[in-house]
């Protein structure tokens, strides 16, 4: 299982010289399985470059898993090259709302006035699936999803093989319902991340920034570290970078994460566009 980060910025794309080090594209992560199957997590603007890479590789079967439908996790889908190739089969998985299917929810982004074309014009073979309670299985990988704390229907993912595990929680505010003093089963996404070798977790804010944004659905760097500690996770990759944070600010955030880390815990690192993590 190999994890490649194509976009790790939160909320809105932030191109420019101040963000070129860690990247300005919004959430998109590729997971490559042994047989070459491409799993894509979220469709932020990072998916545009990934789409070009998949087209160049000739990948024709793609599974896209959406954590939720906030624009920074969906806006790249319309510019995902495989979508415009009739030879491609794209399976899209994501949370339904209490009253609407995933299909109906996504179609709103594919119609005027938000987009000039209608989804019926898409040539790829696209199927939408509401995420099920049972884990999804493919090529020795199990993918589990569960609702997590973030405004609106939002899930996190856990991918697991016989030898490694990876939790993807790009938008997550577990502190809103408590982290410290709680057993993992009472922590939002506790089971998804429990004992995971790698956790990509929301760390949008410094602690002092978080105080003014409680309830917005994102974590401070301290909460990201505390969450990983509470669920006994391994390596923490700080994800969903605040749009106003320059590369320099992000490096200060990483320093802060390392200050909060205790002896014996692995050092957190910043997610960066182009980062590849091989989990074996």
């Amino acid at each position, binding site marked *: 299982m190999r994890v490649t980060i194509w976009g790790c910025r939160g909320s809105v794309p932030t191109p420019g010289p101040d963000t070129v080090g860690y990247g300005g594209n919004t959430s998109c992560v590729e997971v490559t399985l042994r047989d070459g199957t491409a799993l894509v997590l979220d469709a932020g603007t990072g998916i545009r470059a990934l789409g070009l890479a998949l087209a160049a590789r000739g990948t024709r079967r793609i599974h896209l898993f959406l954590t939720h439908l906030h624009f920074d996790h969906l806006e790249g889908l319309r510019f995902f090259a495989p979508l415009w190739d009739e030879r491609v089969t794209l399976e899209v998985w994501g*949370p*339904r*709302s*209490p009253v609407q299917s995933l299909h109906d929810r996504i179609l709103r982004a594919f119609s005027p006035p938000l987009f000039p074309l209608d989804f019926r014009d898409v040539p790829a073979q696209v199927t939408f699936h*509401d995420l099920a309670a049972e*884990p999804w299985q493919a090529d020795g990988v199990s993918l*589990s999803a*569960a*609702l*997590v*704390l973030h405004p609106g*229907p939002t899930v996190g993912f*856990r991918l*697991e093989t016989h030898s490694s595990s990876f939790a993807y929680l790009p938008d997550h505010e577990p502190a*809103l*319902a*408590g982290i410290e003093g709680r057993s*993992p*089963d*009472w*922590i*939002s996404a*506790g*089971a*998804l991340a*429990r004992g995971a070798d790698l956790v990509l977790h929301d760390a949008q804010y410094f602690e002092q920034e978080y105080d003014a944004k409680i309830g917005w659905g994102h974590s401070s760097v301290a909460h990201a570290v505390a969450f990983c500690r509470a669920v006994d996770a391994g390596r923490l990759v700080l994800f969903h970078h605040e749009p106003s944070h320059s590369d320099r600010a992000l490096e200060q955030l990483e320093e802060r994460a390392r200050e909060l880390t205790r002896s014996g815990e692995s050092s957190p690192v910043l997610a960066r566009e182009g980062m590849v993590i091989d989990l074996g």
Partner: protein
Amino acid sequence: MDTQQQHRQKHLVLILAREFASNLSTPTLIADAHGRLVFYNEAAEAVVGRRYADAGETPLDEWLAPFEARTTASGPLPPDRRPTRIAFDEHRASHERYLVTSADGVEREIEVTAFPLFAQLDEFVGIVAIFWRS
């Protein structure tokens, strides 16, 4: 996520309900979809006379039994008239006024409102019961 972890993980709706209840000054309890009491708040601890941390998860019916629920006419209150049982079995909201014997041995008249919690696709994840002391 293995089967045991799936079983142990509390649904997000229960996690949010617990956080809500823990900030209320009204006695409130939460049970999961399996009929297990999974939390009661500090206000309820004062009525029950026992901290939740000491009680732990337990079948709701077992936990409620010592309160000896009776109608306001002092007759036994059948289980199918108890709001918690109605919310759990029939998945609908219910409200009832009745008598209980508290942990201190004093008989008190209370009102109980219980309602089911549904998540996506009408998934039943548990109930909330609120005790209004008269």
